């Protein structure tokens, strides 16, 4: 029997069991603590240090995979990480815990006021086991965003998108996740956590935002969590005109305002202007759960369809009819 002493690299880059059926492109390994950008990145013992360098080494449309190895130090960014090459995948190597998987992308502590921590402008990318965690201790920006997506056909599995993780980020425009534009269509989020751990409550603050005509999107088995300092925080906002076309499906998702740690009861889960975004069937909640909020929506609207359970401060249990149609 032939054995190998150097782990996965006996395959010259073909990784087995990497969440892709098989890997057909090249592998690029990133180690934020022990890597060096003068290395080749082609095996774990020759890993590079930064995601920017890894992306530079990747070839679009070849199904290359960047592996971000957790080794106790974050992949810190001094500028927005723009994931802009189609079919270049990003997979974290860690314990894969749903709540903040260990391969983390964060803001460098020497940098402040970064508007967007990570931008996905590429299409057809697979991203798994990654935390994008935006915390800035001296933020002065109105709208810092942890993750913004303008590309389409991307698949996010077991990721953590968290924004506003400092009291200085409690501004109306702070977001954990923003989907923007008609090109942001057919994106798929499964088993992801989206929210903030910091007490936020400025009017207008939301965890997820849709902007400029977002197309079909699925959230499945996701946890959307907040820690409201006031009743004004919302989970999802689509307040601007023609913010989304949809449909946006939330299937088997939980929306949780953390009353258990002292959060205030929120007024509504969704902030959607029924005049400028009255899109019947645009948002579908299939077997969802809501906790720590007075209602899904402050007033009935056909823009949201709910099927399943609604557990809120005032209603417990069974399905709620939010709209007549």
């Amino acid at each position: 029997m032939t054995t190998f002493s150097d782990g996965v690299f006996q395959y010259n880059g073909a990784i087995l069991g990497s969440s892709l059926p098989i890997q057909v492109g090249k592998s690029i390994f990133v180690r934020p603590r022990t890597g060096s950008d003068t290395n080749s990145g082609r095996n774990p013992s020759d890993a590079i240090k930064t995601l920017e360098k890894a992306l530079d080494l990747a070839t679009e449309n070849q199904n290359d995979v960047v592996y971000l190895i957790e080794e106790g130090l974050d992949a810190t960014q001094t500028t927005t990480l723009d994931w802009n090459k189609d079919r270049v995948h990003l997979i974290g190597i860690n314990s894969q815990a749903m709540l903040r998987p260990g391969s983390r992308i964060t803001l460098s502590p020497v940098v402040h006021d970064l508007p967007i921590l990570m931008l996905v402008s590429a299409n057809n990318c697979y991203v798994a086991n990654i935390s994008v965690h935006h915390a800035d201790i001296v933020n002065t920006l109105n709208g810092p965003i942890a993750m913004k997506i303008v590309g389409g056909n991307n698949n996010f599995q077991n990721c953590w998108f968290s924004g506003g993780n400092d009291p200085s980020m409690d501004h109306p425009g702070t977001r954990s996740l923003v989907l923007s534009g008609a090109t942001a269509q057919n994106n798929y989020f499964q088993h992801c956590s989206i929210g903030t751990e910091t007490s936020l409550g400025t009017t207008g603050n939301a965890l997820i935002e849709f902007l400029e005509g977002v197309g079909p999107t699925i959230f499945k088995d996701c946890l959307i969590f907040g820690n409201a300092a006031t009743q004004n925080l919302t989970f999802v906002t689509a307040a601007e005109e023609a913010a989304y076309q949809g449909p946006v499906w939330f299937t088997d998702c939980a929306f949780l305002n953390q009353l258990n740690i002292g959060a205030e009861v929120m007024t509504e889960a969704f902030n959607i202007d029924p005049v400028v975004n009255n899109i019947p069937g645009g948002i579908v909640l299939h077997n969802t759960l809501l906790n720590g909020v007075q209602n899904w929506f402050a007033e009935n609207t056909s823009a949201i369809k709910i099927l399943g359970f609604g557990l809120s401060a005032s209603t417990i249990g069974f399905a709620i009819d939010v709209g007549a149609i």
Partner: protein
Amino acid sequence: MTTFSDCVFQYGGLITGAQFPVQSGKSIFVKPRTGSDLNTGASLRDAVQTLSRALFLATPDQNDTVYLVDEGVPAAQTETLVWGKSAVHLIGINAQSELGGMSSITQDPSVKDIDTLFFLTGQHCFISNIHIQQGVSANVATSPVALLVFGHNNQLTNCRIVGGADSSMNVAGVRAVVVDGSNAIGNSFRQCSFNIDSSISALNVGVIEFINLAGHTIFEDCLITSTAASNTMVLVKATGVEAIRGPVWFVNCGFTNLINAGATALTAAISVNVSSPRGTIILHNPCLVGATDWCAADTDLVKLLGFGLTAQNFGIAQNLTAA
């Protein structure tokens, strides 16, 4: 350090982590953009270009696997692709997003008369991460069907099946999927989406249809969508004589007529032949948007367990018949 120049193929075809416990048959790689049918297909660097060539190279009942690599160009078909070798599997290598981003099989735009794009006559096949999309301008086919399932015990996982993806396919026979015959039994669809992609006004169109005593079938965590321009369109159709032997289970599925995109509300989501009852359709915790009701009239043939959200009734479990 030992390395291999041909990646996974050092095993002569043994792939692990490919959604099988292990792969026991040989691998055949397809690259529609950079492959060549003069190649062997036996490694990524020697990939063939077409699925028909890959299928020719595969041996039935050996658990061979065809890998269709997404490299930005679909596997375009000039005629019906007949997947007729049993236990030959097809797996797409791509981002695996349920609504798109998968390895695509399309109709070549130069061919206008293909009735069935993908004809699954094999059995015990595993198909995953594949996007079958039938749409061609100036279509002349009268019954364009993206996927016709005739074999049995096949499993399709994370696939997207789209029919009628051009306005010229606005004909009564357009379908995304047809499950045909008593031999089509034990098929399973998991986390798949089915769609008729353009605005269809032809009468009595169905996204999914069962015909000729189709056997028991499971749809789990699937999404069935339409953009109806006629209220006679249905999402599931079983109106033929003895269309279903069944049962057909839809578990945790979403049925959505895209009224958000201007679709006409459907009169009914499901249409069955009540005068020719044989099988049953069971809806377990489904979701319905953009239709007046699940069925136009109460029937024993459709059982709903869980929640039914329609224009007329919201929420709590309902049984379409008292029984």
